[in-house]
């Protein structure tokens, strides 16, 4: 079950013609899919499109009514391959993932799909994880679109434009027998806005019809000689068809302005930023009116040469706004103008940065340079760019960085505490990382992990490091990555190649980093998915023999001993340690309401939490360096004799037990205590507690009486 519930938002998917839909951009996409008569949807979760998957997952009722099939794919490759249903059948299908990470994984299927072409509209909703908030390598999906000839939509970042892009995306795909990518940047995915809804449309041709009357056509399959024909078709049939559709339906928008000597060609996704930059320079208002004409590319691939030539012709200069690198549109536009013999000057990444996010500030600076070069008179009324105040510099050494980290009570923290303790004994080891929450071990206080090669590739990224040596390589892989592809590329590969290293599988019962979605080994029973398939059975199934499972990762000592054994045993083959405890975020979300309800009902409930005796803590913070829990912090000691702050646990503590285990396993310090708060204790329990308190109180008073205190 995902971290966030969309039970309320799901109701909005039922809105009909004329109703106003309000919400996030990515939720608008889900509604647009249903309005477009989509037949099936698949995808792999990950910011910024996790909510699309989560909302559909919560909307299975509506999807069932409409006859829409929904899959939570095992990986982006699986999702992309799902689109095969649209190759021969007139069924609209949509898939989604985080890009470029997911597109890398999906590209095999995408290339095959794009070669043979599609009959039903095939839409790939891409969450372009680029710029601020991104967690992946900074690349462009544009390159994938070009290499496989998949059309790329980049709509203006407002809900009506995004919804229109979904609807046109399917139609364009069908008109040109080509899959279409819809690229949404992070902020567009999360933008709150509204649009006027239409009625949902059940798929006119159903999956059941396809199954009952199957169709095949060998010319659609990537096999010589068809593959050579596909290449010709792409250029001679599908491309012109796409250009025709784009022109006929006006997918790209030309917005007039009175300064006709100049123009700006921009990706649709850049529109709001460009308009704000123009507004800052006094050249646009906030109602969509610009003094400089704009040509907005809601379709960034293919380019419509004739439209671009027409926009540029007769102008003194045009600025291309194309975010990311390398640039593809700008060189293409140079070629278009050269071939059409149009002398308009073209600027782009000479005034705008070659790399990095195009924020409104960056855009304003680039526009300023463009205008200064091409028509300085326009800048006369513009206020100068504000200079940063000198005091800001002084804050640089003060404000500490705050990278993301493990949550309060996270079960992965004790795993890395144990690994840290083992490394204190056996020395530093090469640790290959993976993708997932466990990657936070890279930072303070653990400083563990040397590389990360991709989702589920932790074990295979230690493949070369398998020679006999004094120390073994350790690789880390999460359960999300394991099911994504790690079972084959990591475990099976390690068994087959007789690896000698240690594989640490972090099983937190969910795909936790992407929002806590269920995966095959999730423990909860999920009505629409088959879960509870243990990782241990899977690794044994592919031939792993040395397998140890620790079912309570908070047992730091056990975790440490198991890792030590894995690193020192003489057993051959990969040594697999499965460290399994439920993601605390999900566990709290599940248990807290039940707990509170039980307390309200008057049931006896025990809530554990930890504390630190401030007068026993010496302020060495060794515990923090082994834990890193957000709820374990520091505070003033209140004792003038203690200069350094003491450790303190705040009330966000969930009582996971890690503090006590770490204090014990590392023989840290006796200042930790666990307090079990008993809600609604029984009469007998209360009486006993009172009795004990009375005896203990008497003993305490006795000792206090003999003690002289200075106050």
């Amino acid at each position, binding site marked *: 079950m995902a971290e966030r519930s969309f039970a309320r938002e799901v109701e909005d998917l039922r809105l009909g013609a004329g109703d106003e839909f309000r919400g996030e951009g990515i939720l608008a996409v889900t509604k647009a899919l249903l309005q477009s008569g989509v037949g099936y949807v698949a995808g792999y979760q990950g*910011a910024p499109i996790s909510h699309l998957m989560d909302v559909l997952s919560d909307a299975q009722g509506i999807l069932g009514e409409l006859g829409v099939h929904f899959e939570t794919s095992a990986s982006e490759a699986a999702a992309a391959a799902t689109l095969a249903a649209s190759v021969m059948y007139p069924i609209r299908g949509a898939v989604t993932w985080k890009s470029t990470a997911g597109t890398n994984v999906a590209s095999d299927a995408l290339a095959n799909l794009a070669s043979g072409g599609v009959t039903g509209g095939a839409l790939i909703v891409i969450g372009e994880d680029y710029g*601020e908030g*991104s967690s992946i390598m900074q690349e462009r999906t544009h390159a994938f679109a070009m290499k496989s000839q998949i059309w790329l939509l980049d709509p203006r970042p407002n809900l009506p434009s995004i919804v229109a892009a979904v609807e046109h995306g399917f139609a364009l795909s069908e008109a040109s027998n080509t899959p279409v990518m819809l690229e949404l940047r992070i*902020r567009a995915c999360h933008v709150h806005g509204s649009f006027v809804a239409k009625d949902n449309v059940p798929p006119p041709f159903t999956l059941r019809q396809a199954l009952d009357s199957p169709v095949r056509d060998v010319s659609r399959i990537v096999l010589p000689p068809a593959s050579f024909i596909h290449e010709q078709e792409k250029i001679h049939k599908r491309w012109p068809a796409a250009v025709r559709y784009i022109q006929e339906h006006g997918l790209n928008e030309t917005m007039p302005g009175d300064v006709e000597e100049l123009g700006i060609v921009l990706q649709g996704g850049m529109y709001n930023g460009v308009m704000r930059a123009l507004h800052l320079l006094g050249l646009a208002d906030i109602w969509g009116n610009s003094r400089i004409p704009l040509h907005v590319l809601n379709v960034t691939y293919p380019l419509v040469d004739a439209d671009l030539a027409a926009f540029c012709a007769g102008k003194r200069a045009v600025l291309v706004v194309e975010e990311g690198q390398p640039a593809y549109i700008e060189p293409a536009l140079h070629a278009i103008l050269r071939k059409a013999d149009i002398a308009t000057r073209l600027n782009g990444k000479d005034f705008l940065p070659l790399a990095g996010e195009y924020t409104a500030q960056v855009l304003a600076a680039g526009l300023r340079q463009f205008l200064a070069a091409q028509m300085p008179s326009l800048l006369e009324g513009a206020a100068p760019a504000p200079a940063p105040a000198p005091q800001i510099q002084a804050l640089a050494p003060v404000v500490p960085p705050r990278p993301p980290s493990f949550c309060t009570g996270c079960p992965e923290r004790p795993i890395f505490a144990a690994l840290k303790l083992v490394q204190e004994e056996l020395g530093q080891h090469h640790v290959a990382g993976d993708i997932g929450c466990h990657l936070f071990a890279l930072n303070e206080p653990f400083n563990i992990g040397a590389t990360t090669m991709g989702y589920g590739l932790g074990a295979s990224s230690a493949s070369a490091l398998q020679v006999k040596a004094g120390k073994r390589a350790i690789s880390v892989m999460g359960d999300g990555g394991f099911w994504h592809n790690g079972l084959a590329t990591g475990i099976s590969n390690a068994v087959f190649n007789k690896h000698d290293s240690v594989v640490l599988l972090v099983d937190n019962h969910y795909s936790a980093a992407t929002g806590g979605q269920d995966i095959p080994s999730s423990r909860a029973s999920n009505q629409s998915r088959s879960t509870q398939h243990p990782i241990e059975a899977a690794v044994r199934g592919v031939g792993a023999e040395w397998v140890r499972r620790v079912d309570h990762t908070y047992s730091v000592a056990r975790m440490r001993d198991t890792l030590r054994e894995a690193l020192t045993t003489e057993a051959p083959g990969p040594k697999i340690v499965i460290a399994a405890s439920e993601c605390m975020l999900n566990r709290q979300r599940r248990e807290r309401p039940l707990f509170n309800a039980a307390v309200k009902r008057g049931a006896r409930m025990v809530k554990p939490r930890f504390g630190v*005796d401030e007068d*026993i803590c010496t302020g060495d913070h060794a515990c923090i360096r082994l834990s890193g829990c957000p709820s374990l912090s520091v505070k003033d000691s209140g004792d003038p004799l203690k200069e350094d*702050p003491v450790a303190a646990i705040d009330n966000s503590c969930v009582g996971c037990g890690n503090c006590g285990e770490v204090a014990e396993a590392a023989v840290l310090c*006796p200042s930790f205590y666990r307090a079990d708060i008993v809600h609604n204790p029984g009469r007998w329990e209360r009486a006993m507690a009172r009795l004990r308190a009375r005896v203990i109180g008497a*003993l305490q008073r006795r000792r206090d009486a003999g003690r002289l205190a200075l106050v």
Partner: protein
Amino acid sequence: MSQVTTGLDEPISVAIVAMGGQGGGVLADWIVAMAEQAGWVAQATSVPGVAQRTGATIYYVEMVQGRAGSWPVLSLMPVPGHVDIVIAAELMEAGRAIQRGLVSPERTTLVASTHRSYSMLEKARAGDGRAPSAPVLETARALSHQLVAADMQAIAEGAGSVISAALFGGLAASGRLPFGRDAFEATIRASGVGVAASLRAFSTAFEASLAAPAPLPAAAEPARPAMQGGSKRERAVVEQALARVAAQFPPDAQPMLHHGLRRLVDYQDGAYALEYLDRVARFAARDGLPAHALIIEAARQIAVAMSYDDVIRVADLKTRATRTARVHADILAAADQVVETTEFMHPRVAEICATLPAAMGGWIEGSPALSGLVRRLFEKPRRVRTSRLWGFLQLYLVAGLRPWRRRLLRHQREQAHIEGWLTLALAQNDPALTLEILKCRRLVKGYSDTHARGESRFDRVLAALSLLAGRPDAAEWVRRLREAALADETGRALDGALATVASL
């Protein structure tokens, strides 16, 4: 083509800077809902991603009064110099917003919670790694158009709510949005979750934000501590100690000496406090530093060294009545709840021998067979339930060993270590160097391995003194070595600093 109407309409822009998990999204949703309720057009966006996991993140809202037939084009990200309101859910996040240029003196209302949530780097440092709040607050005041600053976290906790509700109150109090208090409260009510607590937090924050910041209370040091309890004889000894402080030490050093006396009388007895004064007095004669810095530092460090943390001390502190009360307060236990406490003890051979009479402890430690036996019998993690009679009694009895402490192995070792340190400090002609040597005691803290590591660093820093002999900047070097010893847990910084000293 419609005419460009520049300068006529400006959206109101609000940036919310927070840590993942603080509810910045809830606050953004409230602002949007309130604006839409008032007939405005509002757009919000965010870049949550992986920052949701406790990292620094930002939410951004723009709103404008709607216009028939037109739809505004709003920005998806804040532009430095053009943000009307910045709401910071933590002080350093306010600092980060200032660093990003989001706060401008011409325009920006900054609503900031002054509480600190320390970053991992700040917390993990062995010494005090906390970033100072004052520079951020000063810059916030200087660079904002209007500053609303209050401890929103404390207000929220006091109301049993979350920080977003308190920040919403601060925003309302700033008066910067064109909506009245009623509209804010109606928005909270309409959200339907934890309404009563949210409204309490909102209201408290609203009032606190309007109130002028209270001046910091001047810390008044009590003149002379009063005695409570104790036998007549003991009172006479402590009386003598107090009289010595008054007679023999300068007034500005007396508060720290009183702290020392308080600690040591509590730790051992009056006689021990007199020994303490003897030790500090050796430095009084040497004090050539302004404001009696040497005496004050000696008073502090010697008190800490003499009240070393042994098993008896830990057991003593864990079995006091004040401790029971503190635990109940810390965990917010209600009167009708039962609280069970469990302590985590891990006695090792070293601690067990240290708590035996010196001769016996030394004998066992020296014999591998005996210490092996003790290890097998006693060395294991122990969870002691101090809320139960048996668990309590175990610690109570250990605490009762206090009168015999002076005869135990640990005590003899500690005294020898203290004497070595003080002798070394007094052997220097440069009072500044003496001061720095005293301050090095800060390196020795923690328990078991941490303690051993600290002590070894302390020894290594002081061993470098032979290399620094006669140098006019020796004190400065010792200070640098001490900072290096506190800088990281691997000890690499100290190795580097020692190598530098060796190359001088």
